[in-house]
C-alpha cells in the first residue's frame, strides 16, 4: 500500500513545516473540498500538486485543466452541484478566467467556491507583476489575503464558509514569498467526506436579471463591510495612541513586524493587519484610524489598500482632520516590485526621523559578488540538452537563409527564453498564452498589402491546448499565412512537468488516451509535419520549405524535455571534445560551440584554449557534434 502523504494525515495538533501553497491545500482539505482544478503557473502550481496527493475519485477530484477559465468553470460546475470546490491560478491566469468570473459573480454559486490567485511581485517567474486584488473589487467579490503559513491554512475554511454564506465566489490572494516560503503549520481535523453531488431542481445560476443580481452583489459587499469587523484575520497590535500605524496585508505583515522589532519601535508604532482587504471592515478600520494621525501602508504590489484607505477616509468626514497616509503613492515605498524587509525599515526611518542605517545600495551588489563563488554561474537560458535550443538553432539558421527578414512571434513557456541569447534572440514578440499564434494570424493576412517578410509562430504543447487552438482556427478561417511551429517537449516544463492533454496521464495518475496535437491540426485541414528537432539538417530544410509555402504550415518539433528524458533513459551518448581537433578561438571557429551554440554542457577552458564537455551536466543529447566546424566533438553510444 502507498504510504499516506503527511498532508492527508488526520492528526489534529500535528505541526508540519509546510510551503505556503501546501498550507493552502491543507486548509482546503480541512474545509472538505471535493473538486480542485487549476492550470499550472508559478507561484500557484503546488496547490494542486499537493491536493493530488489526497485525490480519490469518490471523495476528491483533482485536475489540471487546459486553462484557467476552464479550471474555474470546472470548479463552478461542482459548486452548482452543491460541492465545495476551488480553482487555483497565477495572476496572468486570472485574466483568462476573468470572462467567466465577471458573470459567475452575478449568477451566484451553490457549494462554497474559492478562487485562489497567487500573484508574483517582481514577476520572478512571470511575464508581468499584475496586482489581481483590483479584479476582486471590480467583480464585487470579497477578497482575503494570506499573510503567513498558519494563516494560509486557517483562511481557506473561512473562505468556504463565507462563500456559502453570501452565495458567491470568494477570492483568496497569496504572493510568491508566501506560496513558496515555508513555515510551521498546526493541523486541524479533517472532516468526514459525505454527500452526493446534486443539482437542486428549480435552481438556476444565471446573471439575469442583471440589475437585480448586480444589486445583490452590492448588498453582500455592504453586509461584509459590517461583518468583516469581526473577522479573525483583522488584527491590531501596538500602543493605544501610536505615533504611526502600519496598515498592511500579505507578506507586508511579517516584514512590518520584523522592522518594528529591529528598530525597537513596538512602543511607538502599531500594526493594523488586514486579512479582508475587500471590502474594508467599516467599524474596525474606523477604530484604527481614530488611534493615530499617520499611516504607512505596506503591501504588494500596487497601492490597492493605500488607495482604498484614502477613499475610506474621504467618505468619513469625522476621520479626515489631519490624517496622512504614506506608502507607494507618496514614494515612501518604491512604486513597483515586491517588498523586502528593507522597505518598511527605510520608510519608518524617514517618517519617524530615526537614525537607523539601512542597507546601502551597494549591498545587493556585494551580496551578489560574494555569493557568486558559491553557485555555478548560469545565464538565463535553456538547460543542457534542451530540445528548444536545437529548435531555435534551426529556426535562426533557416530565417537567415530564407533572407526575407522573417519575424518570429513568441509565446509563454520555457521557449520564451528564445528572446535571449540562449535562443539566439529569435522571438520578437511575447504577450499572453497563445498570443504568438493570434499575432501571427494577424501578420499573416498582410500579404496583399505588400508584406514580404514571412511569419513564424512558436508555441509549446501545453500552450497550444491552453489558448492557441482558437487562434489557429481563426487563422485558417481568415486565410492567414504563416508557419506555426509547435515545440512539443511533452510536458508543461516551465512550471514543473505537469501532465497535459497530450501526455496521456491525468494529475490523479489515471492513464487516458493522449490528445494528439497533429490530429487537431489535421482536422482543421492545415498541413502538418512532425519531426525531431535534434535532426538539425532536416529541421532547417523543413522550415525553409514551409516558409516558401502559402497558407498555414504546422511543424511539430517533437522531442521530450531533456530533464524528463534524462531521468527516464539516462545519457544517450557519451560526448567528448577531441582537443587535438578543437581549434577553439582560431579563425575557422571562434568558439562556435560555447560562444554561439551555447549549450551549458560545453565549457570553454581559457587555459588550454579548447572547449570541453562538462560531464556533470551534459545530458548526452549529441546535438553539438553536428555543429562543430572541425568535427572535434564526438559522440559515442552510451
Amino acid at each position, binding site marked *: 500500500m502507498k504510504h499516506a502523504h503527511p498532508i492527508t494525515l488526520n492528526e489534529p495538533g500535528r505541526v508540519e513545516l509546510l510551503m505556503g501553497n501546501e498550507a493552502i491545500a491543507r486548509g482546503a482539505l480541512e474545509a472538505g473540498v471535493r473538486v480542485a482544478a487549476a492550470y499550472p503557473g508559478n507561484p500557484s502550481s503546488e496547490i494542486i500538486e499537493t491536493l493530488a496527493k489526497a485525490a480519490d475519485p469518490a471523495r476528491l477530484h483533482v485536475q489540471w485543466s487546459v486553462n484557467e477559465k476552464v479550471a474555474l468553470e470546472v470548479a463552478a460546475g461542482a459548486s452548482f452541484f452543491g460541492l465545495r470546490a476551488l480553482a487555483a491560478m497565477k495572476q496572468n491566469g486570472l485574466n483568462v478566467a476573468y470572462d467567466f468570473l465577471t458573470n459567475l459573480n452575478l449568477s451566484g454559486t451553490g457549494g462554497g467556491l474559492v478562487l485562489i490567485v497567487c500573484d508574483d511581485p517582481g514577476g520572478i517567474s512571470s511575464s508581468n507583476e499584475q496586482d489581481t486584488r483590483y479584479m476582486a473589487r471590480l467583480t464585487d467579490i470579497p477578497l482575503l489575503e494570506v499573510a503567513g503559513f498558519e494563516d494560509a491554512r486557517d483562511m481557506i475554511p473561512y473562505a468556504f464558509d463565507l462563500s456559502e454564506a453570501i452565495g458567491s465566489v470568494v477570492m483568496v490572494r497569496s504572493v510568491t514569498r508566501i506560496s513558496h516560503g515555508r513555515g510551521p503549520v498546526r493541523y486541524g481535523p479533517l472532516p468526514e467526506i459525505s454527500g452526493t453531488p446534486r443539482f437542486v431542481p428549480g435552481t438556476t445560476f444565471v446573471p439575469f436579471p442583471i440589475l437585480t443580481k448586480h444589486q445583490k452583489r452590492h448588498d453582500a459587499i455592504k453586509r461584509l463591510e459590517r461583518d468583516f469587523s469581526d473577522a479573525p484575520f483583522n488584527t491590531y497590535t501596538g500602543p493605544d495612541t501610536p505615533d504611526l500605524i502600519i496598515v498592511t496585508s500579505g507578506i507586508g505583515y511579517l516584514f512590518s513586524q520584523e522592522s518594528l522589532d529591529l528598530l525597537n519601535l513596538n512602543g511607538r508604532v502599531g500594526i493594523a493587519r488586514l486579512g479582508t482587504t475587500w471590502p474594508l471592515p467599516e467599524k474596525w478600520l474606523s477604530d484604527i484610524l481614530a488611534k493615530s494621525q499617520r499611516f504607512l501602508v505596506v503591501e504588494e504590489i500596487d497601492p490597492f489598500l493605500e488607495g482604498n484607505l484614502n477613499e475610506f477616509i474621504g467618505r468619513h468626514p469625522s476621520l479626515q482632520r489631519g490624517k496622512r497616509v504614506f506608502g507607494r503613492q507618496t514614494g515612501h515605498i518604491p512604486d513597483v516590485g515586491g517588498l523586502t524587509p528593507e522597505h518598511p525599515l527605510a520608510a519608518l526611518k524617514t517618517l519617524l526621523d530615526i537614525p537607523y542605517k539601512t542597507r546601502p545600495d551597494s549591498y545587493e551588489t556585494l551580496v551578489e559578488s560574494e555569493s557568486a563563488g558559491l553557485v555555478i554561474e548560469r545565464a538565463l537560458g535553456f538547460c543542457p540538452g534542451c530540445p528548444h535550443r536545437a529548435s531555435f538553432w534551426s529556426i*535562426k*539558421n533557416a*530565417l*537567415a*537563409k530564407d*533572407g526575407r527578414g522573417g519575424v518570429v512571434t513568441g509565446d509563454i513557456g520555457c521557449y520564451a527564453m528564445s528572446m535571449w541569447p540562449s535562443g*539566439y534572440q529569435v522571438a520578437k514578440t511575447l504577450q499572453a498564452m497563445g498570443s504568438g499564434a493570434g499575432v501571427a494570424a494577424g501578420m499573416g493576412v498582410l500579404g496583399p498589402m505588400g508584406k514580404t517578410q514571412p511569419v513564424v509562430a512558436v508555441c509549446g504543447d501545453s500552450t497550444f491546448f491552453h489558448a492557441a487552438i482558437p487562434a489557429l482556427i481563426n487563422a485558417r478561417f481568415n486565410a492567414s499565412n504563416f508557419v506555426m511551429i509547435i515545440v512539443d517537449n511533452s510536458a508543461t516544463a516551465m512550471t514543473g512537468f505537469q501532465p497535459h492533454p497530450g501526455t496521456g496521464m491525468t494529475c490523479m495518475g489515471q492513464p487516458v488516451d493522449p490528445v494528439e496535437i497533429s490530429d487537431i491540426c489535421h482536422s482543421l485541414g492545415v498541413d502538418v509535419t512532425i519531426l525531431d528537432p535534434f535532426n538539425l539538417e532536416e529541421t532547417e530544410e523543413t522550415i525553409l520549405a514551409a516558409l516558401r509555402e502559402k497558407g498555414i504550415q504546422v511543424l511539430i518539433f517533437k522531442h521530450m524535455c531533456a530533464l524528463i528524458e534524462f531521468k527516464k533513459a539516462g545519457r544517450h551518448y557519451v560526448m567528448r571534445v577531441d582537443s587535438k581537433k578543437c*581549434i577553439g*578561438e*582560431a*579563425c*575557422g*571557429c*571562434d568558439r*562556435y560551440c560555447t*560562444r*554561439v551554440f551555447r549549450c551549458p554542457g560545453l565549457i570553454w577552458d581559457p587555459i588550454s584554449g579548447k572547449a570541453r564537455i562538462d560531464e556533470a551536466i551534459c545530458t548526452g543529447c549529441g546535438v553539438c557534434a553536428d*555543429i562543430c*566546424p572541425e568535427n572535434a566533438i564526438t559522440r559515442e553510444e552510451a
Partner: protein
Amino acid sequence: MEKQTASFETITGNIIGNEGCVRCGACVGLCPYLTLYNGTIVFPDKCDLPEGRCFGFCPKAPTDFDEISRELWHAPYTGSPLGTYSDILIAKRVKIPASATPQYGGIVTALVEQALLSGPYKAALVTQWKERSFPGGVVIETPEDALKSAGSHYAGAYSLAAFNQYRQRHAVPMAVVGLPCQTLAVRKMARLNHPRNPHTGSDNLVIGLFCTWALSPRLFSHKLSEWFGAEKPGRFDIPPPPANRFEAFLKSGKKEIPLDEIRPLLNPGCRTCLDMTSEFADISVGAVEGMPQWNTVIIRTEKGRTLFQRLSDSGMIETGDLPSESLSHLAFAAGQKKKRALAAAGEEPRENSAAILSEQARKTILQNEETGDNPL
C-alpha cells in the same frame, strides 16, 4: 602578424550589407559564420575575431594595389588600362571535341589542361553550372575534366569557396581560373600573414578572364526560370556592341534578351571594380571583337609565359596577332571601366571599393580618353 583594419562587420555590413559584394567566394568555405545558400552569403551569427581570413582575403576590403603589383613585377600599379603585360596576341584551340562548347577560342580550357599535364599544378579551380540553378566552383585534378567546365556563366559564382575548401585539405600548387575580382583575391590570399591561412606562400598559376560585369546569381537564376522554365541554357554570350543583347543557347535554339533587361540584374558591387582584364593574373584571356572563334590572350608573368609556350609547343592551339584596332578598342573599354569605377566609388562609402591607389595611378585613370560609347 600586422594588425588588420577590416573585421567581420566589414564583410557583413560594409560589403555584403552595402551591396558591394562581387560574389567571388574568397570569404566562404572557411568557417560556419559565412556560408552559401541559394546564391547568396548567409551569416546567422557574429564572429568577433580581430584577425581573420575572410576579411583578409576579400577583394572588396581595403587592398593596396601597389603592394601586389610590386610583388609581381617589382613596379608600382600605374592605372594603365590593361595593366602590366609582356605580350598580347590572339589564339584559338585547333581541335575541339564536338561535345564541348568553349566560350570563344577555348584557350582557357586548353591552359587548364596544359597546366595539369605539365605541372607543377596538381589541381585546378574552374567554375561549372552546378546542381539547382547556380554556377559554383569545382576543383578538378585531371586534364580530361577541364572541357566539362567550358563556357561562361555570367553570374558571380563564389567559386573561390571551393578553392578555400580544397586548400584546407590539400596544400598543393593549383591553377585558378577566375574573374578579375577573383584574380585579385587569389593574390591577397597568398600574401595574408595569418596562422591558419591555407594559401600562405602557395605557388599558384592564375588564369584571369576579362570581365565588364557579372550578374547577381539570385536575380539571374530567378529570371532564367521566368524566361525558360526548367530548361537550363548550355551557354550564354554577350556579342560586342552595338549588338546590345544577351544570348542564351538552349536545346531549342538561341534566345535573345535585350541588354536593358539584363542591366537590373548586375552585381551592384561590380560598379566599383577597376579591372577589366584580370591585371593581376599570370595570363589573361578574353574575346576578340568580330572573331568569335578566337581569344585575346595577355601574357603578364614568367609563369604565364612558360605555360602558354608549352601550350603552343604542344600544337593544341593556333596563335596570331591582335589587330591594332582591336587592341585600341580593348584598351579604351578597359580604361572606361576604370574611370567609371573610380567615379562610382566616390559616390559610395569608401569601404565598398577599398582600392588603395597612388595619386599617380588615380591621375592616369582620370586622364583616360573620354570618347566612344559606354557599354553600361
